[in-house]
């Protein structure tokens, strides 16, 4: 092997991708025929998230030799990074066709299926990979994620233990262990384990995510919400909608019954409806509100990303305005202040969610939606109610459905025939 190949491979192992790219480029200036260097360049681009360059480089190689497993794997990874799951899937299947004993091909297919939400199919593929290679770390890690996703916590624990045997200091494995602790409601233990994972690798995404969940789970109300989230993520898109619409219809019926009943029954029913409404509302704003609390915390501050901080701040500002308006209303009984207070409570919902989708166009749509509600609400305040009030209320409802539609189609679990 040429010394440069060794150099580059060492650099990549050490995470010095920029340096690797620099060297490969000048090397290829001199040896433009060096195929392995070209592959390493494509791979380095991929590692430093320059996906376009990575694809261009890999496709040139692919056109001259379309049956190189490592090249096809790399192209599939690029597909995945660009959310082109169908393309990645066909590459995985092609790889399996080339060599039915290639464990990593099954891992690849399993991962694609996992990302698409087909947890059960994914688990089948991962099992095949583990049959071929029982110590395949990526397969074991995926098995943990999948078992967790479908609620088979015992199986998740089992795979975690195997991974810990292979490498007790792996931050991702430790983070997975922490998540299991959270599932079991052991917040203190979870916090400890996440700290350990982060002390090994503070940049580990799963550990950072878990640490945040653990910090929020110190509040009992969030623990409830955490379980609710887990439960919802296990449902198919259809069932998620059933739960949402079902609860809504149920609350309406309860309200209707309350209207025609009397005495204690009426107050109990009313209380129930209010409780459901509050829970519903909280499920929208608890995350940004607790993130706001976290952003004052020494650790939380570092764990939150800019999007989360922005949403937390906006939600907080919304809440603050609402509180001031409502206090003003109770003091002055000035009707428009009540409207403003209610409007800003409602606006907490778009304020705390609009940056949640990964794609910018979706964020923009949600921002425009929220902006429209704000404008309609302002008009309602100016005109003291009327059509604009109806519009802004409908807008808020519409926003929730619109948002749910976006997220549920992206993230919910899917079952394949």
């Amino acid at each position: 092997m040429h010394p440069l190949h060794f150099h580059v491979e060492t650099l990549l192992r050490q995470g010095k991708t920029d340096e690797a790219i620099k060297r490969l480029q000048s090397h290829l200036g001199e040896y433009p025929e060096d195929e392995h260097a070209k592959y390493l360049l494509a791979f380095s681009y991929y590692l430093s998230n320059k996906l376009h360059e990575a694809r261009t480089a890999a496709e040139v190689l692919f056109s001259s030799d379309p049956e190189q497993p490592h090249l096809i794997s790399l192209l599939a990874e690029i597909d995945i990074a660009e959310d082109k799951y169908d393309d990645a899937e066909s590459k995985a299947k092609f790889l399996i066709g080339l060599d039915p004993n290639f464990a990593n091909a099954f891992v690849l297919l399993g991962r694609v299926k996992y990302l698409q939400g087909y947890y059960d199919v994914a688990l089948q593929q991962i099992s095949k990979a583990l049959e071929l290679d029982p110590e395949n770390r990526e397969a074991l890690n995926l098995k943990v994620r999948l078992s967790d996703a479908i609620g088979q916590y015992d199986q998740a624990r089992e795979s975690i233990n195997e991974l810990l045997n292979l490498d007790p200091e792996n931050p991702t494995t430790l983070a997975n262990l922490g998540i299991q602790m959270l599932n079991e409601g052991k917040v203190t233990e979870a916090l400890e384990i996440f700290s350990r994972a982060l002390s090994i690798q503070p940049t580990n995404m799963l550990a950072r995510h878990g640490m945040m969940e653990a910090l929020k789970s110190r509040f009992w109300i969030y623990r409830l919400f955490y379980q609710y989230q887990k439960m919802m993520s296990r449902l198919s898109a259809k069932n998620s909608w059933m739960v949402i619409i079902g609860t809504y219809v149920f609350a309406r019926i309860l309200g209707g019954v309350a209207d025609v009943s009397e005495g204690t029954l009426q107050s109990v029913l009313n209380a129930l409806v209010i409780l459901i409404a509050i829970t519903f509302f909280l499920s929208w704003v608890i995350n940004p509100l607790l993130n706001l609390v976290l952003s004052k915390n020494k650790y939380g501050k570092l764990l939150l990303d800019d999007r989360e901080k922005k949403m937390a701040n906006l939600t907080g500002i919304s809440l603050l305005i609402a509180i001031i308006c409502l206090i003003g209303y109770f003091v002055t009984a000035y009707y428009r202040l009540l409207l403003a207070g209610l409007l800003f409570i409602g606006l907490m919902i778009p304020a705390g969610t609009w940056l949640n989708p990964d794609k910018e166009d979706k964020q923009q749509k949600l921002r425009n939606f929220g902006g429209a509600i704000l404008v309609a609400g302002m008009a309602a305040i100016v005109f003291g109610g009327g059509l604009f009030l109806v519009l802004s209320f409908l807008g808020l409802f519409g926003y929730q459905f619109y948002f749910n539609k976006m997220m549920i189609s992206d993230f919910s679990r899917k079952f394949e025939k």
Partner: protein
Amino acid sequence: MHEEIEDLKKAIESSPDNVYLRMLLVRKMRPFDQYLKEVERHLEIVMEQEKQNKEAREMLVEVFFRQGKNSAAIVLGEDLLDQTDVSPATKLILSKAYLAEQDLPKARDLYEEVLMINPSMTDQALDSAFRLSGVTDPFADDSDYFLEKPKITFKDVGGLDDIKREIDLKIIKPLEHADLYAAYGKKVGGGILLYGPPGCGKTFLARATAGEINAGFINVTLNDILDMWIGNSEKQLNAVFEEARDNAPCVLFFDEIDALGAKRSDLRQSAGKNVINQFLSELDGVEISNEGVLVIGATNVPWHLDAAFRRPGRFDRIIFVPPPDLDNRAEILRIKLADKPIDHIDYLKLAKLTPHYSGADLEAVIDIAIESVLEVAMQTGTPQPLTTDLLQKAITRHRSTTIDWFTTAKNYAVFANQSGQYDAISAYLKKHKDL
């Protein structure tokens, strides 16, 4: 082969404008010395047709050189260097041409450049001129590393007074008073490890340390370290330390020393910890007072440093090299502008405008300002001195490069500081809340 050449010649006679064919012929003839004159002629024709044909121009450099036309090769080569990326092979030839013309500094710079790109492109004549054969060949037995005699001293380094004092105490004094240390049987070993954001003077300071005591300086670069992953690292490391001993007093500097280990990776490690252990055992064997060898290491990524480095007796001073503070920035600007045409500069104002800028950032700012002055000078024909205003404009065009580093460092300081190894960073962050 020669028939092919004859055939091609005929083909070109019938279609003299076909550059592709002509280049084909040139490539065929080039290896043979008897064709050199002819090749030269064909290449000139190609360049008349395609002025920017890079391949032709690079070949012509070589053809000139092989005919002993060194200055022609140099003129054309320098032209090329100004305009495009030149292949290492051509650079190597150019370097040899410089050597033949006795322009040693240029020859060396280029040769170094070539070896950085491709360690296996060694050349006997150049090697013996600069005595650096082994470095570049990872499988070679004995290595000779570049030995420099730095001219910069501590006064060229702005700020970092505490660190200068520490270096003085820890490694310069024992060297200067070796007999005193010997008389009391006190052994001084180990080394100093510098870490911090890029461009804040780690390498510069190590060099200045050598200059300060008029010692030699051996810079073991990232390339050398990467070579150790391939070849016989034991021999190579041993050779560097020996080289330092032979040239004592000498500062042996390991830049990007984190590359000796690969802590970060999740991938399986093939060479294991061998390289680190060999390095540490060499380091254990060094005695400053006896041997006059000072070992300094530097890294921008202390979090990728193997824990073995931190054990006592190894690098027992591990020093954070921070970005320059306000006064130091003013001082660095003053140092860097000292030999440039300037018009009373408000250093303090500029320093205030450059929070978190590293020394290298400040240097970049000055560079940008100079470029803008040159641009104007080209148009008007009258060179202007650098002004506060111009530098201020340049500042808006160059952002601090240390801020990203601190973003990562902060995470380590908060989450991974159980044994206190990031205390210095924490303290710095406490003082600089805006980071």
